[in-house]
């Protein structure tokens, strides 16, 4: 059981041609005392055995209202069909443009789609996920700043994203010799970024300000007000974190004054997949183009003058610039970016607007119905939300609902107390286009029984 072709005769002929007796002779440079260690691995399994084993990796049947950075949306059927083309799957980075126009053209399309969603002109071929995209944006800001190394991150940003941003910059040198450091911007009682606190923390040492909208609680933030403070009081880059579906409805990061926009396109590209691979995007203003991380594809022509595409501005990248590169990223999440690109193009302007509105309507219906339950209130009643919202439960009941509802076939959302001690009775509920009215009503009934 292997993927080899060599017959004994061929192996013999090849060894003769090389001029050695056996395959072991090819490994003569390995230190003898360390060769062929015992390695304990299970015996090989056959194809049907393995498929049965892997088929068992699943959760019991249930209806989930979990979001928090991973959304269960419907992906058009043609997306999987087209990304399954082996010509896309089994190629690699398009270093040789003459025989990689398929990949190059689709990357150019992905960049175009991200530019249209964010309003920012320069997007790259993708980064790993939304969190690492935020990390790259913070690093980009520190590289661009004269000496500044402080990165202000709103406490309303996804806690995991915040942790990744800190991980990306804590060991990154600033030009004044210090390393990057994250500071949190407080949140208001309404679940939004505290602009007074932002204003107080802004000074010339701030390299970036990162605010997500919708934020972790699902709420739409006032990027315009926040970013105008940023530009009025500092030279920091304003970084907007979002996702393609809300961006179909919301004012674009560019309209709100963002210098960089990042996020994860998972909700339009791929399944939940236990957390990955997803796909991060990053877009920026024209003047940051040479600071961008990763692959960028540009239009050009071939020898006959035909329009075609190639990797461009490669002098930013590690294989040329080495220790002076803008990032070490090379392999990114191209195939998932392709899925996002095809999905967005299949939706088009009308489809993506309808899909976003569908998410919005379903979430608002669910919020209206859930808050009819005794003791259940919106945690942030004034906030505007997209497809995710926070509820306040009677004391102790949010965790209890999370623990007990799977027994009734529902995961009702994510208890907020795990990430925000002050919201120990909060539950974050996501309602995507895939949740039916019957499922929402079923959740309301099941929760009613637990409460």
């Amino acid at each position, binding site marked *: 059981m292997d993927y080899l072709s060599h017959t004994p005769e061929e192996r013999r002929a090849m060894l003769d041609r090389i001029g050695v007796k056996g395959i072991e002779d090819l490994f003569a440079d390995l230190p003898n005392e360390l060769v062929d260690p015992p390695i304990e691995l299970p015996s090989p399994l056959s194809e049907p055995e393995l498929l049965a084993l*892997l088929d068992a990796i699943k959760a019991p049947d249930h209806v989930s209202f979990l979001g928090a950075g991973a959304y269960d949306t419907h992906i058009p059927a043609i997306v999987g069909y087209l990304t399954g083309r082996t010509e896309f799957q089994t190629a690699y980075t398009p270093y040789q443009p003459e025989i990689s126009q398929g990949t190059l053209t689709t990357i150019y399309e992905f960049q175009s789609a991200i530019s249209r969603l964010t309003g920012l002109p320069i997007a790259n071929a993708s980064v790993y996920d939304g969190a690492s995209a935020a990390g790259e944006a913070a690093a980009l800001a520190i590289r661009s700043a004269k000496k500044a190394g402080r990165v202000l991150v709103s406490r309303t940003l996804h806690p995991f994203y915040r942790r990744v941003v800190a991980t990306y910059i804590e060991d990154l040198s600033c030009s004044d010799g210090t390393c990057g450091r994250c500071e949190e911007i407080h949140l208001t009682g309404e679940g939004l970024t505290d602009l007074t606190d932002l204003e107080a923390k802004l000074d010339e040492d701030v390299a970036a300000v990162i605010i997500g909208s919708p934020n972790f609680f699902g709420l739409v933030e006032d990027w315009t007000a926040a970013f105008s403070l940023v530009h009025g009081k500092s030279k920091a880059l304003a970084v907007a974190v979002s996702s393609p579906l809300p961006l179909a409805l919301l004012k674009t990061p560019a309209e709100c004054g963002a210098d960089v926009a990042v996020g994860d396109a998972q909700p339009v590209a791929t399944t939940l997949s236990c957390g990955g691979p997803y796909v991060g995007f990053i877009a920026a203003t024209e003047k940051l183009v040479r600071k961008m991380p990763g692959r960028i594809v*540009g239009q050009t022509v071939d020898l006959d003058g035909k329009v075609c595409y190639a990797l461009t501005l490669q002098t930013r990248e590690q294989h040329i610039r080495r220790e002076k590169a803008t990032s*070490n990223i090379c392999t990114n999440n*191209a195939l998932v970016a392709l899925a996002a690109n095809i999905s967005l193009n299949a939706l088009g302007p009308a489809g993506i607007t309808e899909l976003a509105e569908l998410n919005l*309507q379903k979430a608002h219906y669910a919020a209206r119905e859930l808050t009819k339950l005794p003791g259940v209130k919106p945690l942030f009643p004034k906030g505007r939300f997209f497809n995710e919202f926070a509820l306040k439960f009677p004391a102790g009941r949010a965790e209890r609902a999370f623990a007990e509802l799977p027994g009734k076939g529902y995961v009702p959302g994510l208890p907020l107390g795990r990430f925000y001690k002050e919201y120990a009775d909060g539950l974050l509920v996501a309602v995507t286009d895939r949740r039916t009215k019957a499922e929402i009503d079923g959740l309301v009934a099941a929760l009613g029984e637990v409460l």
Partner: protein
Amino acid sequence: MSEKIIDRPIEPAIYAHSRKGRRCHRPPAPDVPVRPLDELLPPELRRAKPPALPEVDEPTLVRHYVRLSQLNHCIDVGFYPLGSCTMKYNPKLADAAAALPGVNALHPLAPEGMLQPALALMYEFEGYLSRITGMDRFTLQPAAGAHGEFTGIKMIRAYHKSRGNPRKVLLIPDSAHGTNPASGTMCSYDVVVVASDERGNVSVESLKEKLSDDVAALMLTNPNTLGLFEENILEVAELVHRAGGQLYYDGANLNAILGRIRPGDMGFDAVHLNLHKTFGTPHGGGGPGAGPVGVKKHLAEFLPVPTVEKTDEGYRLDYDRPRSIGKLLAFYGHFLVSLRAYVYIRYLGLEGLRGVSAHSVLNANYLLSQLKGTFLLPFDRLCMHEFVLSGKKQKDAHGVATLDISKRIMDYGFHPPTNYFPLIVPEALMIEPTETETQQTLDAFTAALLAIDQEAAEDPDLLHGAPYSAPVRRVDEARAVRELNVSWPEEA
């Protein structure tokens, strides 16, 4: 004069097919009572008009992407000896497993009870990787090789810091991948280059010169990017450790030694693997890959959160690791890529994995034996899974660059080797056939390269103008930089 071959236009970007009002995918109408949009999301929060995505019908969209796909060279169409990238056959069994509905439906934040089978897989997989590499623990979180390097070097920095001094310098051989120095910079290290010796190894003399108590680590690929096993690896490891440094293994070339010798036994303290190289997962046109990182015990407390722990009550995600370097991705890494690699290991077993290294090295040496008379071989040794030739002879004699040779290779139906890398070999052609190629394919590739060498002598301009039968002629990459256009212009 009538032409037999009609010069057809190449498939444009999808925006060229867009016509106002066309529709492809239609989301369903809401099945819940709706409220006016303005009430839910007031106009002042909304964008003025929908994003200007293309408007196409489904048949046009499908035809567009199928046509584009046909412009790609890929493993399933032909030989792809892109050195250092290990473009081996990607087993379809692994793809089938990754497409199973159960794993695709798992939400990463589902209650741990629901995630048990997935956590068990991660835990077992971590164990296989530890045993294969001789390390103590692994994290599956890093998304690609470079991400793994960043993770590993950060852990090494955290380790030194915990002992009072993060140190300043990262040593990197002159043959190293560009990601190595770039990862060092992301961790504030100054990169100092160690020279190679006349046999293509890291020079022990140069290493001794550069070693000091400022050195945090030496990053090494073994076999190195010349496709040569580091003959002095044990001495190198001892020297680095004696200076208090750590030894980092860039796993890009693990394919050559799979099941035969382990980085952990050679003295490496941290390793990253490239699952998309060694363990046969698809490269996806540039990802997603996966770059899990393994470490010895003394570095394990610095692993990113969460780790997967086995307890009496089942598997658990452990976020309570106070000395952790933090997080690299929102969730647990590229689960579906790990799953494919898990399938690969379980299908092949240890003997199968040893067959991989045996035949990757056999194929490389066989190809080398047929080409070394025609092209310069800068380090004349048996190679491991890949080898580096120089096109300097062809350049000097006929004015034909390695780039020209590479472009001409396309006309023969093959993907060119990696070229101009490693940087220490002029006009480098880095060739990695992998174990999944037949002798016939290697012979056909040999015949093509020998024919191209002939062409270089007889008609250099033929090569300067290549390729002729690829979907497009030679691409003007300089113009892509000069006249920057990275997004389809939006109509006003």
